[in-house]
């Protein structure tokens, strides 16, 4: 049901994008407003906030994009994360690093020289991480005592590959300073599971749902290093 809803929303979005392209055929004004092209770098501020609120979780993500044409941007995210998953019968922690690379398409038509975006994008993500099973309880008949194991088991060298669809808003709040809010829907392509256990959380991918899908949110602040105007 959720997939259907997302697909429907994407469809609506693309229909609107194509409708907008038709408008481009209207003869243009002779005055051309130039906008900045360059490298934009920033950090995700939701992860440091989560690190403060929950001492068992921490993370840092650096985001960057480079404008390659009027509407297209090459984008990448690089991060490191530690996240503890608490379930009824298991408690496990994932630690590792990830990289995401892809493209953003700005579907927002700016007025004059404004530089805001409503963008959709695609990413390829890769993570390398380890997962520690901190403790677990054997799920057995409650009439007899339960077996609880508190000896941590760490499995290193796990990897994950996934693809990601991104939707986001970006606003230039001061000259060359941008605030971005974006959400993503992720589909796992390949994932390692520890022997006789499962990867519950992959850095960058976030929680691995039963259908091998995931969701992500970013709130970033970034600065544009302008190289040229055109």
């Amino acid at each position, binding site marked *: 049901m959720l997939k259907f809803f997302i697909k429907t929303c994407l469809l609506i979005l693309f229909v609107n994008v194509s409708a907008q392209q038709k408008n481009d055929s209207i003869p243009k004004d002779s005055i051309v407003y130039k906008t900045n092209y360059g490298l934009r770098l920033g950090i995700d501020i939701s992860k440091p906030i989560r690190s403060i609120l929950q001492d068992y979780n921490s993370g840092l993500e650096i985001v960057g994009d480079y404008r390659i044409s009027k509407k297209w941007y090459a984008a990448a995210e690089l991060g490191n994360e530690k996240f503890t998953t608490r379930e009824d019968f298991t408690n496990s922690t994932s630690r590792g690093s990830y990289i995401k690379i892809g493209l953003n398409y700005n579907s927002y038509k700016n007025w004059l020289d404004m530089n805001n975006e409503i963008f959709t994008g695609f990413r390829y993500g890769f993570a390398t991480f380890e997962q520690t099973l901190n403790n677990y309880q054997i799920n*057995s008949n409650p*009439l007899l005592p339960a077996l609880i194991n508190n000896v941590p088991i760490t499995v290193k060298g796990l990897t994950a590959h996934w693809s990601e669809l991104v*939707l986001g808003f970006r606003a230039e709040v001061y000259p060359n300073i941008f605030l971005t809010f974006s959400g993503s829907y992720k589909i796992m392509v390949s994932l390692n599971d520890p022997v*006789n256990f499962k990867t519950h959380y992959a850095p960058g991918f976030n929680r691995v749902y039963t259908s091998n899908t995931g969701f992500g949110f970013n709130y970033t602040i970034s600065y544009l290093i302008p190289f040229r105007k055109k």
Partner: protein
Amino acid sequence: MRKYYLLLTLIALLVSSCEKDDFCIEPITPNMVIRFYNATNITQTKSVEDLSVTPEGFDELYSNANLDSILIPLDVTSNQIIYNLSSESNIDIITINYDVEEVFVSRSCGFKAIFNNVSVTSDVSNDWIIGLTETLENTITIPTIDNETAAHVKIFH
């Protein structure tokens, strides 16, 4: 209008990512299934009158029941459990020895145990239990108990 759709999509994503998508519905640690048969006509099941089942050191599981099959849990913290089975105040003791193997099931169910090299022995007094096999011997071994779909042990009485 487009902004509005995007906002709705983002809110939908936000809400859905918090919802629990996984409930424990898979089978967990199996109990041992015991079926009671007639010792004089070994193909026929026979209910036990006034049956009480108590694991040694724990609370009674069945009391004064009239059943032809029971489910008894095995202790995952040990390699042995002793059951007192009584019928009309005649007590028989069965001793179960086993190895515990831990198997991961799913995120919500966690780990279950399965039991290997299970041996079941009834005491030789034969108060009401006559045997555990069709030739009425007092010991039976089961290679593995990993489900509850069929009886693991037949008790002839």
